[in-house]
């Protein structure tokens, strides 16, 4: 996957009415990649797609597609197509005419248009609805028409703006798989925008995490999930338990002794910390290990009481309140040996984790 660079954005900035929406953005997308732009609402995701498709032009910076500068190329001349957030199907045209539109305006011969429209509708499995109007289709079907209308042009780059967010949960899961398969089949580079972190993790080759018009982190889903580079990244992708602490001692290259809430413990980090540095230690709920302990024991280490427990089907999610009042979330998988395990409210537990899986970040204030 992803050999050559297909498109690169170099120092792109976009200003709307004195408001900087995208600021000095630089990144590259590789050919054949499923690239996801992830970020909270209003962070500039759609704006980036518009800049790539040419519907908006940047105040600063350059766009290079296949070694060609397309910064000033009009949208209608770019080999890039978009599946819009609202689908934007032409309501007065049938499904087939919608799909044919891009080829028709480019003057492709009629016979060829017919066969390519048929082929595109086959790919999204909608040939039987070709003569319907968009208003007579379900949300999922409209979505697939929008995809067919874009891919029929064989673009170098397909942009999808929150294309699944309007669908219900089940259809959405199906469409996620379908999109992924489609992308492999067509070999087209996809740039997918979403604010749903789960969707981003499961579909992407690489994720660009955005925050207020700037890049927060860019990397594979695993890199972003396992080694977030900031509290924002960590918090945006999945749940995180956060402890604040201080480095007490450096043992080896990557091993430190730190104080966390009055307890000393060993942590691992690739960051270069000095003794006395303040740190954040982050732990995923599923990385925590709980151990029931009798109420009477004077346990050392982290102890707390179960204050809430939620059955989640595959996991048991528990809220633990520590002695100092802090709350933690633990998520444990049921295992075969003990499919009925459960905690009583107020059960005293000691907390541990898989060492080495903690995320350590410099203090952000």
């Amino acid at each position: 996957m992803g050999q050559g660079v297909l498109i690169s954005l170099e120092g792109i900035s976009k200003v709307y009415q004195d408001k900087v929406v995208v600021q000095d953005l630089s990144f590259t997308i590789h050919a054949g990649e499923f690239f996801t732009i992830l970020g909270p609402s209003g962070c500039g995701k759609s704006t980036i797609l518009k800049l790539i498709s040419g519907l908006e032009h940047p105040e600063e910076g350059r766009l290079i597609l296949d070694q060609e500068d397309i910064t000033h190329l009009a949208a209608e001349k770019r080999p890039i197509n978009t599946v819009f957030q609202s689908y934007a199907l032409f309501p007065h045209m049938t499904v087939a005419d919608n799909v044919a539109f891009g080829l028709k305006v480019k003057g492709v011969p009629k016979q060829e248009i017919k066969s390519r429209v048929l082929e595109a509708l086959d790919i999204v499995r909608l040939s039987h609805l070709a003569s319907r109007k968009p208003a007579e289709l379900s949300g999922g079907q409209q979505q697939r028409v929008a995809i067919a209308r874009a891919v029929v042009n064989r673009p170098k780059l397909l942009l999808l703006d929150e294309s699944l967010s309007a669908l219900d949960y089940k259809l959405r899961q199906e469409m996620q798989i379908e999109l992924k398969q489609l992308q492999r089949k067509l070999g087209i580079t996809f740039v997918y925008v979403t604010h749903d972190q789960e969707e981003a993790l499961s579909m992407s080759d690489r994720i660009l995490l955005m925050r207020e018009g700037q890049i927060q982190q860019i990397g594979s889903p695993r890199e972003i999930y396992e080694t977030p580079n900031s509290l924002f990244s960590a918090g945006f992708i999945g749940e995180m338990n956060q402890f604040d602490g201080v480095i007490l001692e450096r043992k080896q290259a990557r091993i430190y002794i730190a104080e966390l809430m009055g307890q000393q413990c060993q942590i691992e980090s690739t960051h270069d910390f000095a003794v006395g540095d303040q740190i954040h230690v982050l732990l995923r709920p599923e990385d925590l290990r709980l151990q029931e302990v009798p109420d009477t024991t004077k346990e050392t280490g982290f102890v707390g009481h179960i204050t809430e427990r939620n059955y989640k089907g595959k996991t048991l999610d528990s809220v633990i309140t520590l002695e100092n009042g802090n709350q933690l979330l633990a998520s444990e998988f049921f295992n075969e040996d003990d499919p009925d395990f459960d905690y009583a409210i107020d059960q005293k537990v000691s907390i541990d984790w898989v060492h080495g899986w903690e995320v350590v970040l410099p203090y952000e204030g």
Partner: protein
Amino acid sequence: MKVKGFFAVIAIAIVGSWLGLFIAVPNVLVLITSFLENDPQGFFHLQFSTAAYHQVFDPLFWRVFLHSFEMSFKAMIICLTIAFPFSYWLCQFSSKVRGWLLFLTIVPFWTNSLVRAYAIKFILGKKGLVNSTLLFIGVIDKPLKLLYSEFAVIFGLVYVLLPFMILPLYASLEKLDKNLLSAARDLGANGLQRMWYIVIPLSMPGILAGCLAVFLPAMGMFYISDLLGGAKNLLLGNLIKTEFLSTQNWPYGAAMSISLIVLMAGMLFIYYKAAQHVQKRGEFDV
């Protein structure tokens, strides 16, 4: 609930009797009159006759009718060519600015149209604004005969009827989803193609409503032709008016009115059928 129902009944009764008294009854009277016999001494005889309709098919009447039709049609096309770009341009502004611009467009039309027709007389006349300006710049050396011509009638019709084109066009263009234009651009359509394939088809209801709202009244605007047209440029309204007021052949005037209504209804029907047919099938359906 009771009180609400009472007011609803009153409101419907008022509107209903207003429509009945001033629209249904007069039209029925016109229809009846058209089937009566002409009386050279009075208005009509209470005697069934289709003579008035025979008169309608008189070639002399048709010549006037066609010319009137042509002038109204031209006025309609000119209104459309002015109003479409104008309404499209209006829609580019923010909704607040749009409201003001639309308001400014409509304000002059609060003046009675008869008064405005008189104003045109002063603009187009021998010593009017146009001629004196052209003379002053030296483009011409003797005044042009602008008044009492087909040009003057069409000018007057366009001026008086323009807002009836702008309003429905603006209403349908304003509703146009801008995302559709972005999508069309994204798919490679240039400005002209976007206009032809997206904007025009989607604003067709507005275009047609505007055309009807200009064309139908234009045929009947006798005072425009009276003031600006002279004897050769009569509108259908002039013929009807003459029959009722001067010649006092009421059955003939009524028959002309009814024929006009039937013709318009026929045109609407044909358009409706055509639109239905076009909408049914797509070009690339499989």
